[in-house]
């Protein structure tokens, strides 16, 4: 805690504004930041959803089909649409912030931030394509 001075005529009371619980609503940048942090909840849900999928697959084809049907229900579908939006937001903000955290030097030249972000996005596309290739066209 900051040391509290003794208040005198020549050192009167300072005014302190406490930070409101709704500080994150006061500026657009803060709100977007909190949204970015909330993507963590949807990352956790995605993990749970994929684990439920693994469980259904283990129980056989009937359970697997039932799981896919369950996913078309309005509640789950809506949740997954929202989840997709949030995890995309996570990926985009994460890769855009990478250049600020990673400074890469090749010899004497610092790699420009744009290239670091671009290579992250490229890796994302490659990995996604790989996963899709593994899973598609194998019914």
């Amino acid at each position: 805690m900051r040391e509290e001075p003794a208040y005198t005529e020549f050192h009167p009371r300072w005014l302190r504004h406490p930070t409101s619980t709704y500080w994150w609503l006061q500026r657009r940048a803060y709100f977007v930041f909190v949204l970015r942090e909330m993507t963590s909840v949807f990352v956790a849900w995605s993990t749970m959803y994929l684990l439920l999928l693994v469980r259904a697959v283990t129980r056989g084809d009937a359970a697997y089909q039932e799981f896919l049907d369950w996913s078309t229900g309005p509640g789950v579908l809506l949740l997954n649409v929202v989840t997709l939006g949030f995890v995309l937001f996570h990926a985009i903000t994460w890769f855009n912030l990478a250049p600020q955290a990673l400074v890469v030097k090749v010899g004497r030249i610092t790699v420009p931030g744009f290239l670091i972000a671009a290579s992250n996005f490229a890796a994302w596309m490659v990995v996604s394509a790989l996963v899709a290739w593994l899973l598609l066209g194998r019914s």
Partner: protein
Amino acid sequence: MARRTVEPLLWILFSAGGVLAALLIPVLMLLFGLAFPLGWLAAPGDDTLLLLLSHPLARVGGSFLCLLWLLHAAHRLRYTLYDGLQIKHLDGVINLVCYGGAIVGSAWAAYLLWRVP
């Protein structure tokens, strides 16, 4: 002293989980959350998935992946609760719920993947 070494480690796990979540979760949720259930694309058969999941690499890798994803989420949620709701004085409870939940979830993941025939 223990506190000093834990925070950097948690941050590393958070970062690793963040990168892996960013790379893998969007495509997985697009396919298994929307495309396959809604029939936009032909879903892989049950046997194909079992083949993929039964490989030891998939079991270990999958468990590790879930651990990192859940730890990433736990770490971020913990700080959001601190800052967003200003309930830092409950930090013992928050840490338990967040990281504890991540550990429990990962244990379940490992169990499920072990049980794949």
